[in-house]
């Protein structure tokens, strides 16, 4: 059975018919609709089910409403370290047995943490639904917490940090940028956290965090795939409904003050060989009209080889080897990011000036029809392709339910992008891409000098 395809109507179709481009008007746009059922268990666990018999696969995602935004001073990196503990065993599941059983039965799984949520997921052959429900419910109910496991995963997480940050060129630049960009502690620190804070995490912290945040009433479970909905719901209730709910965790103050002046830092990086310019413009939370307009703006400014920055900086002026960026989607205030790696011998000031030139043109003249169409078509192709797998649908629906309380965003998201006009793009360019609203981090390769080892 194919996923149900629909013909888009309304704004998107209209805007495309009216847009003047050299290309023929598309004959008809199809998208994908997801039928789902939402159920709330007595203990507050929200359950979303999507029955789809097109492949013999089941995918389950549980997203907990906790991320590094919930961390306190001195415990940065804790939400993610905790995520690792979720694989170290519960009453009926041994250390490592969770992923051992999933991989050894032809499945795949992972867990990820960001500022705004922590999500756990697996996809398995459809006859292993009971296994997936057992593994997820056992750890929600009865996580085993001990020092040996904590120390083991503290080591793994610290290596993860070294791998991604400390041993990589430009690794620290992102961290410095985030600290400079945000005033509110919730987003001011990175999800991976500091080595010092990771060292400070205790088993008591793990137990308290588990009790407060890993409660059924603080989670959304989405099940997608080849099952019968009534049967699956019965099993889900049997596995999860007896897990007690907990008091609602305290809300995090996400207020982010307006930025009033440019912020700037320079990083000397011993591992980098080429200078890099990283820009961030503080903007708005995700799933807002201005957010979607900034996504379209980002596509025009820095998406793909047709983008203004690629054509200007890489091709015409030949200042950089690469330039690109994105509009970050956050529950709180997100930012539009741009990053450029310089060619040898080029000055960072020239690269900054060239980027600001392109931004000024956008503010003055807006974008062209083809750029609007590019943003919408690219978003649509990526979105639709992402829906091919049950697993990505499960993750997306859980996360959007936790973020925006809206599982149906999977069916309305493209309409929201389609609603963006050229005027919206020009307006958000003028509103957010200003000099006083930007945070600039320049990374310079640290001169080697006398410390270099002698060469033959």
């Amino acid at each position, binding site marked *: 059975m194919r996923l149900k395809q629909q013909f888009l109507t309304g704004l998107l179709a209209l805007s495309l018919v009216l847009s003047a481009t050299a290309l023929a008007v598309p004959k008809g746009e199809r998208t994908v609709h997801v039928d789902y059922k939402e159920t709330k268990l007595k203990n507050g666990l929200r359950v979303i089910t999507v029955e789809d018999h097109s492949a*013999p696969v089941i995918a389950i995602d549980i997203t907990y409403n906790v991320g590094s935004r919930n961390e306190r001073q001195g415990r940065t990196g804790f939400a993610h370290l905790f995520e690792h503990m979720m694989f170290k065993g519960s009453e009926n599941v041994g250390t490592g047995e969770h992923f051992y059983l999933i*991989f050894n039965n032809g499945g*795949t799984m992972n867990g990820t943490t960001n500022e705004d949520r922590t999500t756990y997921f697996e996809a398995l052959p459809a006859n292993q639904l009971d296994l997936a429900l057992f593994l997820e419910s056992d750890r929600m109910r009865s996580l085993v917490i001990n020092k040996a496991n904590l120390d083991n995963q503290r080591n793994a997480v610290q290596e993860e940090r070294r791998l991604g940050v400390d*041993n990589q060129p430009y690794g620290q630049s992102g961290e410095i940028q985030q600290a400079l960009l945000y005033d509110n502690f919730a987003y001011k620190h990175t999800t991976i956290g500091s080595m010092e804070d990771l060292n400070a995490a205790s088993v008591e912290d793990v137990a308290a965090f588990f009790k407060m945040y890993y409660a059924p009433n603080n989670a959304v479970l989405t099940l997608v795939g080849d099952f019968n909905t009534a049967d699956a719901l019965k099993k889900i209730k049997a596995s999860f409904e007896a897990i007690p709910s907990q008091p609602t965790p305290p809300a995090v103050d996400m207020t982010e003050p307006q930025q009033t002046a440019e912020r700037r830092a320079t990083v000397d990086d011993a591992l980098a060989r080429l200078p890099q310019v990283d820009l961030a413009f503080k903007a708005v939370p995700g799933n807002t009209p201005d957010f979607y307009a900034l996504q379209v703006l980002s596509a025009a400014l820095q998406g793909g080889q047709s983008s203004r920055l690629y054509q200007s900086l890489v091709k015409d002026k030949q200042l950089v080897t690469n330039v690109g960026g994105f509009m970050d989607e956050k529950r709180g205030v997100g930012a539009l990011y741009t990053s450029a790696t310089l060619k040898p011998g080029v000055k960072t000031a020239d690269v900054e000036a060239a980027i600001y030139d392109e931004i000024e043109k956008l503010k003055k003249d807006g974008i062209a029809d083809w750029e609007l169409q590019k943003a919408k078509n690219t978003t649509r192709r990526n979105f639709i392709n992402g829906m*091919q797998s049950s697993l990505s649908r499960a993750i997306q629906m859980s996360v959007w339910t936790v973020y925006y309380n809206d599982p149906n965003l999977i069916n309305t998201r493209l309409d929201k992008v389609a609603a963006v006009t050229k005027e919206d793009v020009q307006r958000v360019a003028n509103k957010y891409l200003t000099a006083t609203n930007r945070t600039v981090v320049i990374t310079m390769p640290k001169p080697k000098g006398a410390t270099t080892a002698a060469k033959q």
Partner: protein
Amino acid sequence: MSNFTKFRNKVSALVVIFAFAVMPVMAQQRGGAPAQQQQSVVGADIKGRAPVNKEILKVKLPKAEEATLSNGLRVVLLESHRVPTFTMQMVILSGGLSDPADYRGLATFTASLLREGTATRKSKDIAEQIDTLGATLVANSGLSSFTSNITSSGLVENFDQVLDIFADVVRNPKFPQEEIDKYKQRQIAQLQFLRSNPQFLAAERFQRAVYGEHPAGMIFTPVESIKKITSADLARFHSTYYRPNNAMLTIVGDVTLKEIMPKLEKAFGDWQKGDVPATKIPAAPEPGAARIQLIDRPGSVQTVLQLGNLGIERTNKDYFAVLVMNQILGAGPAARLFLNLREKNGYTYGAYSNFGGSKFRGTVVSSSEVRTDVTEGAMKEFMYELKRIRDEKVSPVELENAKRALIGSFALSLEQPNALLQNIVTQKLYDMPADYWDTYPQMVSAITADDVQRAAQKYIDLNSLQVVAVGDASKAREVLSKYGTVEVFDAEGQPMTEVKKPTQ
């Protein structure tokens, strides 16, 4: 082939439990299931209480359709109507292995510059038109690959327009000198950038260690080649090898053969055949003596380790034995290397083994990144695991688990039509039997513990083991010297005679 897949660039806000992508293989039948019981596994505690369904799901693989255009171009279509998109790929049956010995990279340059201008479209036109359609267009060829691939994905409603640009780029590239000059500059700068990445340095040195002067001995086009590229050279390579009788057009997506054949005929039917010279596949050199090579990267806080040597060709009769052996040794988080180095010892974020094979022998390689002060412990555990899989038969439970993992994952692959098509392409490129993927599960099932041990003894040859490390030589050199003579290089690959002493 290199196990090197991608470079990290920007720090991501997303933090995951594993940096591990599951590559679906495929499978189709039931196999025996292990009894659920308490098991003794290094690095994990298996209580055996979770309900595991012992059946392995039967999966019926979708079949591709085939057709031929009037000029002989082969078309392979895998219909997939899950979502209204498509991907098309022109597989040119010549790649880096057709490069002249003194001009390595010619195939790579030719592919890379296809979209930089045609008879009727400038580079910028191509970029704008493809992006406006929301489509992708990527062309590449590796230094040691025997194909060049041009791939385009899009929304089905834009199939005609994407096909038009795709065909133009494949057939009519002009290789403007101005674009070539810019490309050269970007490539040379890109190489600088890559040399700051420790995984790149490790992969580069490892491939050189195993393959020497063989085309697989390099993972980035040599600067001497980049400097001498001319438009005429690329045009000659293109006109020699980009011919319908030396290509295969593969498509997957929400289209039917009936609907697309007239369009393909229009786009490619008058593409002229040519006399295409045969490419000689160079054999990989015989393994040499064991070596330990260390790249000094001052400031490193981790040591990147790669240990391995030559493996097999893709069509080697030992393929399934090596597949199962690798599954048990290090194919994922449930394998020995991960459970030992990470879950038991906390040395690393991940430890894996990998193997690959082409028309020449690929590699079998184990790798990890570990903090500098446990380089010694990590080397000890790597050597322990490499010896263990050679010296001891794998247990019945491990063997069954590996088979269930490999065969069971076929169900998930049904949601990944692109991966299914790639498997079909593999079967054709290597002239495998038409029922290769249907019999794959039986081939996996037939592997015994003896087969696994024999594969380990043959392809994990400790007498010729190549060890490559990238890290702070002032600390790692002494540790590695316990395993043999350590040769030290700088990031440019130049031998170093003196290493700075630790400063603390």
